[in-house]
């Protein structure tokens, strides 16, 4: 946990507690923020520096079966981007899908202390937790894929809503997940069972099931809210990446009917269709999305910005990856998981001269620049789908520095900018406080992590101290100090200690009777025994259960208040 510590002279950005750049002390003891420490406590002089809570990535892909396939399939990206071992820390390799140790150290070296792996099959939970044990520094959790789950489909099809909720609770608990995730609901079933078809609208019939994506999404939003999960259902909408998909996205948000829902990487879901003969070209409909979100406090989103350069498409949306294969490299990975999901992987590169890529880049910026509530439109690149987490500092600079942004805009496909509203939001520059919201306080609040994302007494002592610099990319690329659970991990920009973070997970109660519904399905359709499916505590050497609050489930969160 480290010895007591007093950080002095730093400008503190703690938006959750209304602190906006005031010079004040921050005291740390036993892994927590405390009001005071003894006078002989170690001091860090943060004069000329900015103190923020540790960064929180609400949506990234860093561990588990699909991530490991994506690592394995790209040896060429590891060769020239290596992580040297030190006396204390392990070696690794990078690229857009780094090895586990490199992932942990590199996130930490950017000032991040928490990350959520956003798509794990229930069958892959154990694998993910094993990788987490080898992913240092970060606190981690994962979202478990339930949107193409055939047992849940059967329950829903038969109108067994109560059992659907119980089964969802069971799945969250036995996999040690943090939140339920829907990915292109119905799409994987069409892909696996329908000769590689896909869902095209919320009212498509899902294969042999008497169901539509509309019914699936509405039911899961309802069940998630009733369970009172700290983070609501996390939705990757249908039609990702398709021109004109904005209608699907808006319709999906309307399905929430005032209940909490989180839309993932919404940039990829904000496309209109160009008029005339170039109909297949997307256009920006960021304004419509932002208007909806600004006026609907029950909805939150992470942006899923695109950054130019190498990326890896990796997704539970198998038909999407197959489509992108045409634009990516000559490699394509598909991996179906029985009764639960699909998965697709394509190495990819976003190019500033390419119309669609430039438009995606512009839409990501537009969404962030048009957003009126930074607490509900938070930072992500859907790492590594829109770009590596290593590009976060550049994205921050694009938001904070309009001169730099203008300069970058000059280099991209101008036709794409014509079809976006980015030129209309040239004035806005994010403040440090707003950056602290979209990268820290906001994600913490949306995830329901009350001990994170702020520096109030009792909060986890996860802190980042940056040296102030006009060049925000430089500033956010290499914090001077990073403190995790009160321990100095990075000092003078260098890794000084190894550290194992916690698994953050939920454990909602469920009626044990539900197991009698689930077990026969396993007997018939799984190839792993029901008794061998739940993940036991051995896979969680350090864990923290985030409580659920079923009674308050129905109440929508409101903007600007702590949950």
């Amino acid at each position, binding site marked *: 946990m480290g010895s007591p510590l007093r950080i002095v002279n730093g400008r503190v950005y703690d938006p959750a507690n209304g602190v906006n750049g005031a010079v004040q002390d921050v005291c740390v003891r036993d892994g927590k923020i405390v009001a005071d420490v003894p006078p002989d406590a170690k001091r860090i002089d943060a004069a000329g520096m900015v103190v923020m809570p540790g960064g929180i990535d609400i949506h990234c892909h860093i561990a588990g079966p699909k991530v490991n396939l994506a690592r394995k399939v790209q040896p060429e990206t590891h060769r020239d981007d290596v992580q040297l071992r030190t*006396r204390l820390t392990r*070696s690794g*390799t990078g690229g857009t899908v780094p090895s586990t140790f490199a992932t942990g150290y590199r996130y930490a070296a950017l000032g991040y202390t928490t990350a959520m792996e956003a798509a794990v099959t229930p069958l892959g939970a154990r694998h993910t937790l094993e990788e987490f044990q080898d992913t240092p520094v970060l606190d981690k959790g994962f979202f478990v894929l339930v949107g193409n789950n055939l047992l849940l489909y059967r329950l829903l099809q038969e109108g067994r809503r109560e059992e659907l909720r119980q089964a969802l609770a069971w799945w969250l608990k036995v996999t040690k997940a943090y939140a339920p995730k829907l990915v292109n609901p119905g799409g994987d079933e069409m*892909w696996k069972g329908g000769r590689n078809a896909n869902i095209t609208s919320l009212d498509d019939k899902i294969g042999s099931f008497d169901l539509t994506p509309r019914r699936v999404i509405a039911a899961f939003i309802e069940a998630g809210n009733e369970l009172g999960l700290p983070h609501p259902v996390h939705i990757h909408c249908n039609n990702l990446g398709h021109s004109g998909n904005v209608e699907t996205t808006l319709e999906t948000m309307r399905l929430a009917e005032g209940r909490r829902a989180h839309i993932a990487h919404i940039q990829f879901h904000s496309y209109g269709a160009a008029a005339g003969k170039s109909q297949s070209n997307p256009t920006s409909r960021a304004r419509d999305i932002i208007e909806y979100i600004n006026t609907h406090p029950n909805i939150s989103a992470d942006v899923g910005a695109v950054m130019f350069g190498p990326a890896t498409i990796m997704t539970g949306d198998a038909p999407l990856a197959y489509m992108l294969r045409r634009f990516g490299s000559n490699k394509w990975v598909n991996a179906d998981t029985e009764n639960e999901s699909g998965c697709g992987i394509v190495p990819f590169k976003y190019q500033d001269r390419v119309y669609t890529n430039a438009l995606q880049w512009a839409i990501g910026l537009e969404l962030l620049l048009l957003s009126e509530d930074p607490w509900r439109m938070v930072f992500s690149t859907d790492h590594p789908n829109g770009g590596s987490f290593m590009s976060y500092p550049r994205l921050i600079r694009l938001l904070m520095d309009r001169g730099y942004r203008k300069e970058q805009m000059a280099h991209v496909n101008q036709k794409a900018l014509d079809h976006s509203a980015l030129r209309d939001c040239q004035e806005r520059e994010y403040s440090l406080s707003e950056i602290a919201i979209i990268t820290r306080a906001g994600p913490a609040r949306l995830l329901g992590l009350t001990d994170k994302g702020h520096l109030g007494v009792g909060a986890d002592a996860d802190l980042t101290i940056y040296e102030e610099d006009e060049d925000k990319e430089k500033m956010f690329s290499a914090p001077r100090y990073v403190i995790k659970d009160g321990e100095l991990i990075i000092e003078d920009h260098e890794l000084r200690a190894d550290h194992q973070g916690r698994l953050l997970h939920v454990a909602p109660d469920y009626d044990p009777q539900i197991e009698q519904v689930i077990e026969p399905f396993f007997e018939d359709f799984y190839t792993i025994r029901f008794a061998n499916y739940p993940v036991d505590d051995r896979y969680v050497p350090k864990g923290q259960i985030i409580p659920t609050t079923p009674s308050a489930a129905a109440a929508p969160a409101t903007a600007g208040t702590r949950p």
Partner: protein
Amino acid sequence: MGENLKVVRDATCTFCGCVCDDMHLTVDLDHKRITKAENACILGKAWFREHGIEERPLALIGGRPATTEAAVEAAAQILARARFPLIYGLSDTTCEAQRVAVAIADMIGGTVDTTTSVCHGPSGIAFEGVGESTASLGEIKNRADLVVFWGGNPAEAHPRLFSRYSVTPKGMFIPNGRKDRTVVLVDVRRTPSTPAADIFIQVKPRSDFEVLWALRALVKGRRVDPSIERRTGVSLTVLEDLVARMKSCRFGVFLFGMGLTMNRGRHFNSGALLALATDLNEFTHWVAKPVRGHGNVTGADNVVSWQTGFPFGVNFSRGYPRFNPGEFTSVDLLTRREADAALIIASDPADNFPKAAIEHLRRIPVITLDPKATPTTQLAQVAFTTATYGINVPGTVYRMDDVPITLRPAFESPYPSDEHVLTAIRDRVRALLGGNRLPAGAPVAAAS
């Protein structure tokens, strides 16, 4: 039979890559024996019923009995002194042990390689080249209406691949089981697996690549010359019939074995098959799956990949992982006499490596971890007797389709687990080296 019986339900057999987790074991605790293994295939029955605790020393140093602690010290001294050590094996132990083994390789700047390099290594290399469309075994059970086995003999090597996963079981969209599937077997000769197939296609030895490439051409609508039959032993009519079936099924799967990967062409063969599966996705759903051998070789691939970015044949001597099959794969590295020490975990290279590689193993200090005496333990300087995973040791094993399964051991062994021994070695080596060994010329700042 003793009085003291217990039944372990849903235990897992780690003999082959099927990793069936529906074993109901009856254990005679007095005699430390498994007397019954319900649901096990013929290989699994032998695996469980022939397992006994042999009266062997906990360890041998230079052939003399020693304590585990003394052997840990001896092993750590060897590894701490070695300049180019090899860590090899890993496919018959738990992921927990594998993780520690890779950690040791990283710490000392050695090479870590697994039995993959002499097994489905070419499939791993092909995967890096073209990717793969694949599926968990349950998808094959639930959906596959066309199952093509290529270069393997599951009836003898993976008996329950047929009965539990891919041929006879009923599945959600295969309600009548075997009747709803067409089974094709491609091989160079008839084997006990042949009768399971509806269609047997016999290819001339060393012509798998040509057959696969012709199939790719036909799938893409290109013309193939009838002379293909002279070259491969398979007529154009048979190939065209197979292509028609492959394009019209609802869910097709290739399950391929070492008859393809260790044949002339190696990773070109695996690559051609993976590319064919990918091509077929233009028409319908297609997946492919290498049929892996050892119980946890798939776990080894996964662990080495997540820790280093590469699946096998990984060297750490420059302070970071490098992958180069042919350079850092064990047979090559031993045959060229490069390794100056070897830590062999749960495998028996002295039994199955080429002679020149074995000769080098005799020249260098070798450390082994194995439950049984083997040709490799017999040439070892330090030989640990360890408990058997799955039967005596808990932990995690990955099935051939990357599905991780937690083991339920039947009874305790007097011997320590691989993980226990490796952890002790790691800690002792770390103490001897004062932390991770840094390569010569490493930046000074990194040493703090």
